[in-house]
């Protein structure tokens, strides 16, 4: 029934190039949804910004743990059927589903965050918004190595997935780039399909404490909500932590421990979402992969709190090298 929506979406011809008036945006979140204070929230911020600016009609749906692809697909289809002609899927779990739905609804513009798999979620009406997390992680790795007095730093990953491994790989490379003989302790809190590792500050605390006890003095928490535990124990032990996804120094929930957060690896999902919506809005939609990396400004590191002011120049040096392509950061071990 995809054809029926042609009139519903304002009567415009659904080809790229023609700006649509009164855009209806559907957003399908990953597990956690709006309010997860992390990845999904970041996407929500982008949506909110677009909404206030363009006055959109939006619909937000979220995933449940343990659901199947059919349910994800159903979610996207419900959005399409509801007349939402611009659909954003947050998270790689939507890869297969978006591929199928997009094929059936060529008039709808889709975007998927964090995935670009050829033949699965690619098509003329899909934008694949991916991030070079390894590059940002590299920079905070540099910061960690420069700040560390012991030459021993840590990485706490929430759940052992390829996505989080990207963070680890980049981080380790960053550390080694500064101090080749530095030790990087690595710990993942849980293994899939147990995704509680993103949600268990107590585990984060235990893991980080172990790292501090073993001589680390900076720990990078790529662990969603479990990062809170990392920062808490860093504070209790007068050590440092590094945040992830957004500038965690400024997160209200972390106000009490923010002075140990020296920097954060920023992944601008909000920017990606906003960019995508405005591209549809002004008719400049482009299918295919759009990489948000350091160069594109989709990835960055935070300086709030001023803890790394002394080494900022050094970090920026590395940043420039990555942007210029002089340093290539691998995203896999």
């Amino acid at each position, binding site marked *: 029934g995809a054809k029926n929506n042609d009139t519903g979406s304002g009567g415009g011809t659904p080809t790229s190039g023609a700006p649509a008036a009164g855009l209806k945006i559907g957003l399908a979140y990953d597990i956690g949804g709006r*309010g*997860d204070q992390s990845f999904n929230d970041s996407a929500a911020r982008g949506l909110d910004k677009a909404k206030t600016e363009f006055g959109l009609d939006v619909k937000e749906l979220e995933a449940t743990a343990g659901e199947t692809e059919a349910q994800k697909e159903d979610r996207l289809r419900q959005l399409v059927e509801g007349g939402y002609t611009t659909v954003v899927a947050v998270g790689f779990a939507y890869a297969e589903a978006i591929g199928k739905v997009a094929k059936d609804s060529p008039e709808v513009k889709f975007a998927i965050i964090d995935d670009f798999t050829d033949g699965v979620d690619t098509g003329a009406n899909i934008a694949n918004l991916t991030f070079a997390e390894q590059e940002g992680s590299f920079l905070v790795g540099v910061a960690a190595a420069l700040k560390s007095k012991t030459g021993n730093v840590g990485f706490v990953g929430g759940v052992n997935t390829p996505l989080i491994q990207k963070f680890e790989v980049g981080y380790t490379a960053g550390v080694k780039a500064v101090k080749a003989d530095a030790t990087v302790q690595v710990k993942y809190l849980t293994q899939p399909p147990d995704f509680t590792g993103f949600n268990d500050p*107590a*585990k984060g605390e235990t893991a980080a404490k*172990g790292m501090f006890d073993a001589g680390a003095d900076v720990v990078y928490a790529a662990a969603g909500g479990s990062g809170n*535990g990392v920062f808490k124990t860093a504070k209790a032990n007068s050590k440092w932590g590094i945040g992830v996804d957004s500038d965690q120094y400024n997160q*209200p929930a*972390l*106000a009490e421990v923010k002075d140990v957060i020296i920097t954060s690896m920023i992944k601008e999902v909000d920017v990606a979402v906003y960019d995508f919506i405005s591209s549809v809005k002004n008719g400049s939609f482009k299918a295919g992969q759009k990489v948000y990396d350091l160069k594109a400004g989709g990835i960055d590191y935070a300086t709030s709190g001023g803890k790394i002011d002394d080494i900022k120049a050094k970090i920026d040096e590395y940043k420039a090298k990555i942007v210029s392509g002089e340093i290539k950061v691998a995203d896999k071990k």
Partner: protein
Amino acid sequence: MTVGGLSVGLDTAAAPKRGKRASPWTYALFAVAALAVISLVRVTTGATDLTSAGTVQAALTAAVPLAMAALAGLWAERAGVVNIGLEGMMVLGTFGAGYAGYQWGPWAGVVFGLFLGVVGGLLHAVATVTFGVDHIISGVAINLLAPGAALFMSKLYFTDAPGGGARQSPPIGDAPKVTVPGFADLMGTIEDKHWFLLSDLAGVLRGLTTQISVLTLLAAALIIGTGWLLWRSAFGLRLRSCGEAPAAAESLGVNVYKYKYLAVTASGAFAGLGGAFFAVSSGQFREGQTGGRGFIGLAAMIFGNWRPGGLATGAGLFGYTDAMSLRGSDAVHALLLLLGIALLVVAVTQYRSGHHVLSGFAAAIGVLFGWWFFASDEVPPELVGAAPYVVTLLVLTLAAQRLRPPKLAGEPYRRGQSG
């Protein structure tokens, strides 16, 4: 029925030997011997984390909610009600602690978490005691209901709260922590010397005296208090009689329903407290933060033979291995050697008491672990986390199953139906 319905297999393990219970000295001696073995492994492998204060502290933190869940199970089952809904009640506790905690401080959180646990317990009591519903079914229903309700309420109350979100509460302050001044430092100095046995003992003691949350102390008091109340008081005798022979209790004028209600409600309270402990110690409520610990708590209770000391040991063992697997990977690698040695010791003792098959089995696994230790530098990181589960399974397999569950736990009971 609670051990899993069937009693088959229990006869194959050594039968419960009654008679004298081991004296405290025997236990102490056993503990020292075990520590010596661990120390030996620590010295040979250099994995200081095996007995470091940090490990002990982390083990305590991990063990406390488990112990609370196990204690909750103990209260219910001693009164004859199986409570598999612990997980759900813990979830209610985490939410309660988050809700009250961010508004009125951690203690309010503890109290309200406990209160919501009580609500869950009451629901279970109404279903099982009044309506005679199968205990397992009621528990499963509560496990379905509670997380849904918690998330539902969390979205309702926390979404717009400052620093909160749809799935997490705003931050709660932490409960106070205490350190024994002077002593802890002294132990620290000894620990750093890495002497055989002495440093290990110091590490353990330091872990037990440094930065201990008041909630941990509360939990310890509750475990001891439960032991006293259930086995030394008239109230406890009546409560236990409801799990052993409710008909007899009723015929002596004990109001069985009342005690079952009390026990299951208390069970809910303990589970809620365990949940609150999660929230308060990690600084906020988070959806799903109990992560199935209610079930592990139940396992700890069975492991501990429905006794406070036993369940504390079970929770401690699990907490210890869990803490170790989350901390360095070295310690888990060293654990392979430790397990190997322990299994060989078991093999020898079993051989001497005539259980040749079991002895051979233990020896084989022991050698396997030893070989794994020497043939590798580390346990694959994906497998490290399995340590607590594997160790629990191994201990259960090799320890004789001298379990004595309350006789009528899980059996529906109706007033005036006996005799």
